[in-house]
Every structure is written in structure tokens, then in C-alpha cells.
């Protein structure tokens, strides 16, 4: 699929570098310093991924993941979400690295460029770890009554899952 969006990444890298050079920033040192920060991110999520991918692979191999998908299949397929994404939808608001583990397992299992694989990637990229974020923010400033923050955030997640399945179907598989 070749279109205007193919330009985004190369143009962004070029534009940012030229602009920063114009601002007299040592672009190359910034790139390598940033990459070093990225490496720390990777090292930080690595232990979590070992733990979670182990559990996710076991869950998948035992047949439990299929059972979960089948159980929620009627509800999910009515609104156009592939049933194979049930486990991803459950873990997404709870754990970021858990969602990364489940998502990457789904992508490997069903194919990275398949409808299920692409939908999983879009869901991962356009939603956040809701409960974690709520806990961090309200915890940091000492809020005890969270009122409607969680229901509203879950509305956003639900719409995200639904729209992800819809746009992937329309943009890439129609």
C-alpha cells in the first residue's frame, strides 16, 4: 500500500533533523543520546515481557485463550471485533506490558499483516493502560473520590477498540 502516509516517517526524520540543525542543535549527539534512553526503556520492559510472554504462551497453548475468545465471540462479533482479540481487550486497560505480550503473541500467531494482526496493532497503538494511569495521577495528588473518571476513561477505551476494528476493515481489507 503506497500512499501519502509512506512519507510521514522519512519526512518527519528529515524535517526534525534539518530544523534542529538550523537551531544549532548537535543533531547526531541528540540521536545517539536519545537512542541510549530508548535502550533503557527496552531493558526496563524486558523482565516484564519474559514473565508475561511465558504466561501468555502457556495460556494460548492450553486452549484457554481460544475458550475465552469463543465465550465472548457472540458479543464481540456483533460489533465487528474479531473474537481472537478478546484477551487483548481484557488486559489492555490493566497492564501495558501485559497488553504488549498478548498483542505480540496474537500478531505472531495470526500474521502481522492479517486483519487480526493489524487490528491488534492499531488497538495497542491507540489506547492506554487506563487503570494504571488513573492510579498514578490520582495517587500522586491524593484524590480519594475519583467520581466519573474511570467510567469516562473506559468509554474512551471501548470506542477505541470498536473504531480500531472498523477502520482496519475499511482501510486495509475492503
Amino acid at each position: 500500500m503506497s500512499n501519502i502516509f509512506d512519507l510521514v516517517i522519512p519526512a518527519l526524520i528529515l524535517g526534525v533533523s534539518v530544523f534542529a540543525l538550523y537551531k544549532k542543535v548537535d543533531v547526531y549527539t541528540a540521536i545517539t543520546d536519545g537512542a541510549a534512553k530508548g535502550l533503557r526503556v527496552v531493558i526496563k520492559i524486558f523482565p516484564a515481557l519474559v514473565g508475561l510472554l511465558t504466561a501468555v504462551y502457556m495460556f494460548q497453548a492450553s486452549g484457554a485463550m481460544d475458550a475465552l475468545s469463543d465465550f465472548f465471540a457472540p458479543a464481540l462479533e456483533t460489533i465487528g471485533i474479531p473474537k481472537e482479540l478478546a484477551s487483548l481487550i481484557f488486559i489492555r486497560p490493566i497492564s501495558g506490558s501485559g497488553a504488549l505480550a498478548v498483542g505480540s503473541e496474537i500478531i505472531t500467531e495470526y500474521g502481522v499483516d492479517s486483519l487480526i494482526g493489524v487490528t491488534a496493532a492499531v488497538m495497542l497503538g491507540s489506547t492506554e493502560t487506563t487503570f494504571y494511569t488513573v492510579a498514578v495521577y490520582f495517587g500522586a495528588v491524593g484524590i480519594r473520590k475519583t467520581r466519573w473518571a474511570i467510567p469516562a476513561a473506559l468509554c474512551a477505551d471501548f470506542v477505541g477498540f470498536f473504531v480500531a476494528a472498523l477502520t482496519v476493515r475499511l482501510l486495509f481489507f475492503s
Partner: protein
Amino acid sequence: MAMAWIWTGMVAVSVIFGLINGTIGAVGTAALEGASAAVQLCISMGGVICLWTGVMEVMERGGLSEKLSRLLRPVLSRLFPNSAGNEEAMEAVSSNVSANLLGLGNAATPMGIRAAAAMRTGTEANNDLCTLVVMNTASIQLIPATVAGVRAAAGAANPFDILPAVWITSIASVTAGLLAAKLFSRIWKRS
């Protein structure tokens, strides 16, 4: 502790299903496969993540995230009507949103917490505070580098071709969150 329950629960359910379905042998093999898959995933997605944090660093040092944050400010004042006059809160919110858009997760959270502290009026969350949290629970990242890394690791033809779908979905999800926030703030009266 939540993760301890989830992890143990997944393992327990896997073993029970393995025994019932007769797939327990595969479950044992899968445990080892999962652990090595984690190494492979980290190595293959590491490149994309490092490249992207590098580009982000250039953006930050070039002053682009500051520019973006000044651009966002008028729009954000309308989303946070009660804090619009609060200089400290508005500055922190715009930095928080611009860092989120650019994927600077490490910068976004402290800024967001600073905004939350400036908006706080007691131990009960007020409308602006709820809106801030809802906005942060909906991802508004322009370039989802981690996901692109996962896709690159799995051998995608073009790891970034999901961008338009991610943008449409993010906009829909943030809009839904903000609309829900506005709606709930009307019906959910302070007790």
C-alpha cells in the same frame, strides 16, 4: 499486587485447561518458548524504539515540543474551563499534551501530575481533574513507536502503514472520552 493475581491466574488456568484438554505437554513447551520469544521481541523491536527516542530527543532539543505546547494552549483552555485562568495548571497541561503527542512518555507523566496538583481542590476529583485523567488514559501519540517495533519484529512489510488507522482510532477514542467526561460532569453531581 494486581499483576501477581493475573499472572498466577493465567498460569493456573493454563495448567487446568492443559490437563482437561490433554495439552499439558504443549503448555510446558510453550512456557519455554514464551521466555525466548521475549528475548527475540526485545532485540528486534529495540532498534525501532531506540531510533524513535533518538528522533524525539532531537525534537526536544530543537524546541519543537515547546512550540507545540504553545500552539495547543488556546484549545486546551476551552477543555479546562475552571483552570483556564490558572497559569501554572495551563502551562503544565499543554506540556503534558504535547509530550503525549510526541510520545515522550517520560516527560508527559511528571507534567501531567504537576497539572493535576495545580487543579486539585480537595480529596474529591473536580471536573477539570477528571478531564485531565481521561485525556491521559486515551492514547494520543502521533507515532506509536513501540507497536511499530513489534510489527517490525514480526516481519511486517511496512511497520508504520497502520498510522492512518491509529490516528483515526485515537481521535475517536479521545473524543468519546471527552464527550463522556462532559456528559458525566453534568449528570454526576457533586455529593
